[in-house]
């Protein structure tokens, strides 16, 4: 075989005329860095970024200034004397009208609301999404449609009935009540998310597991769950930010001592006692927004890694 192939290459070599390159364009076409297109593109992107980041900048610098400096009115100028006093005050001493122990109380309330709500809602939604995708039962499509319609009904319509229901159950104003509300309202979108994800996994994998004798929970726990890290991260991001940022349910379904952070922030900013402390308000706002921000930064990377790990053909 070897001699045949060498013969062939030799033949090709003698047949082909070695070309000389003509003058003019050759290879990859050079691209100018400062083309009109690039200037437009980066210009618009830069402007948009500036527009969004400017308020954040103002908040950060204001929160680091003392009140005398703020009274000068130069909101864009960086702090002459950096002070963390407003941050400490916002966290531990700011008054909400009734008590003066700052945002820390609201922070821990929010954590107590968020952690169980996120875990319970994701668990319930993933199991129901899995059964809707893989264990079709009579009327499962109808059930799913009703669930999706639920996502389009404005929350405001349901608030009063839910207040009554929770009151009758004796859990109105407790954290348990709010956790239940968050779990239920997260259901439609999360179930949709999980159902579509599980439906996109190869059906034959599910069949193979059934042939292997695995049951409903074994397939869920040992086959589906390990393959679904990306969608769990997505669901977690959605729920953490959604529940943390929630104001409406928080203000309706809790009492002052169980107010979540967002409600307390509102109370701090709106309770005027003498001078309005802009620096404390800004610091309090940044503190409240810190959790979703951190979640985005941390799990954003995890999300990409999750997709890469999940992208296994097979």
């Amino acid at each position, binding site marked *: 075989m070897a001699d045949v192939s060498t013969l062939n290459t030799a033949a090709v070599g003698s047949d082909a005329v070695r070309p000389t390159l003509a003058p003019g364009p050759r290879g990859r076409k050079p691209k100018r860095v400062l083309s009109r297109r690039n200037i437009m593109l980066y210009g618009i992107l830069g402007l948009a970024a500036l527009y969004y980041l400017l308020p954040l900048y103002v908040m950060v610098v204001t929160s680091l200034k003392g009140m005398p400096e703020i009274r000068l009115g130069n909101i864009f100028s960086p702090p002459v004397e950096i002070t963390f006093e407003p941050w400490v005050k916002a966290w531990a001493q700011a008054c909400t009208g009734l008590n003066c122990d700052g945002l820390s109380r609201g922070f821990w309330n929010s954590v107590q609301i968020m952690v169980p709500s996120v875990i319970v809602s994701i668990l319930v939604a993933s199991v129901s999404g899995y059964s809707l995708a893989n264990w079709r039962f009579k009327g499962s499509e109808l059930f799913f449609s009703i669930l999706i319609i639920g996502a389009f009904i404005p929350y405001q319509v349901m608030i009063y009935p839910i207040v009554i229901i929770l009151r009758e159950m004796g859990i109105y104003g407790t954290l348990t009540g709010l956790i239940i509300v968050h779990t239920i309202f997260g259901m439609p979108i999360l179930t949709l998310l999980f159902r579509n994800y599980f439906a996109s996994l*190869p059906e*034959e994998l599910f069949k*193979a597991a059934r042939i*292997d004798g695995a049951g409903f929970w*074994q397939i869920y726990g*040992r086959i589906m769950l390990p393959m679904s890290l990306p969608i769990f991260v997505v669901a977690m991001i959605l729920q953490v930010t959604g529940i943390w940022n929630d104001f409406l349910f928080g203000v309706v379904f809790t009492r002052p001592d169980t107010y979540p952070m967002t409600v307390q922030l509102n109370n701090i900013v709106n309770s005027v006692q003498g001078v309005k402390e802009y620096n404390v308000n800004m610091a309090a706002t940044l503190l409240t927004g810190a959790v979703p921000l951190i979640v985005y930064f941390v799990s954003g990377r995890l999300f990409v890694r999750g997709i890469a790990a999940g992208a296994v053909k*097979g």
Partner: protein
Amino acid sequence: MNVVPMQFSKANHSVSVRDLTLSFGALTVLGNLNLDIHDGEFLVLLGSSGCGKSTLLNCIAGLLEPTEGQIFIKDKNVTWEEPKDRGIGMVFQSYALYPQMTVEGNLSFGLKVAGMAKDEIAKRIARAAEILQIEPLLQRKPAALSGGQRQRVAIGRALVRDVDVFLFDEPLSNLDAKLRSELRVEIKRLHQQLKNTMIYVTHDQIEALTLADRIAIMKSGVIQQLADPITIYNRPNNLFVAGFIGSPSMNFLHGELVEEGGRTVFRTNNVSFSLEGYDTSEMLEAGRKVVLGVRPEHIKVDGDLAGEEAHEAVVDIEEPMGADNLIWLKLAGHTISVRVGGARRYAIGAQVRLGFDMTMASLFDAGTEERI
């Protein structure tokens, strides 16, 4: 043709499908289907996509619930049994390996679920790995395997279950041509070694012809013909089977039977073909509209003719395929293909003489499309 079908005693039905009907709402995928598969038989379900062959396999596996009818495996009614209790192993087209587990994890999953002892699991994995020669791969994840290795592992997963019946759902369709022919041989060898009952779904006629003890050709949920490969190839039941099996396809000439000189002959576009040698139990009465089917290799050209009836034809196109040479000719207004040896070449427009081998030909009723 003297084909001796393999003899099986009647009681040894490994899988029996009785009056199986499956419908999704108004759509009937399988209607009143009956099929008996002998112990140790390699049965291939062959058909184009959407003919219900995979559906039938899924019903046997217990992954789809039949609307009506019964399924027996080893003479036990398993119609209501879970897949795991049916004594089957299944191999899928997309391999369906669990991506997060190693090869060993994939092989042992079903056994662990069944609560089998550890040393027994290890023993079975070792045996399967040896048979399939995947021992060096046991600690790898499916993502680190090639297509052929993945399919071997998938077969291994069925093997460790130590089952009576193997179900294959187009197992080679995702592989490239070379691997496909290699694995085809391996599956055949595996069957000869294990002597299990195997039911194999494919749309590839070469796989069907090479692997099967018997082939069931399906079309719209109905088995068109159930026979051994040679019978299927040489004596197709109807026009569909004749056209489906064989590549290049069988030549079909539409015409009618006429009386000529005291014998019945086939006539198309005023050219008559003698039917001498055609084997049929039916009366060939004149006036009947029929279709004559002849395979490209059953037509003799020029030098091969030995004094039998021959017809003038003109070479239209030539397709050299290496071992063979397929020539397309114009004969009596029809375009027909003839397979000759690879060394024989014909110029376009050349006049040749053709003779049909009527002992190997097929005659179908033009109306019912059934074999005469």
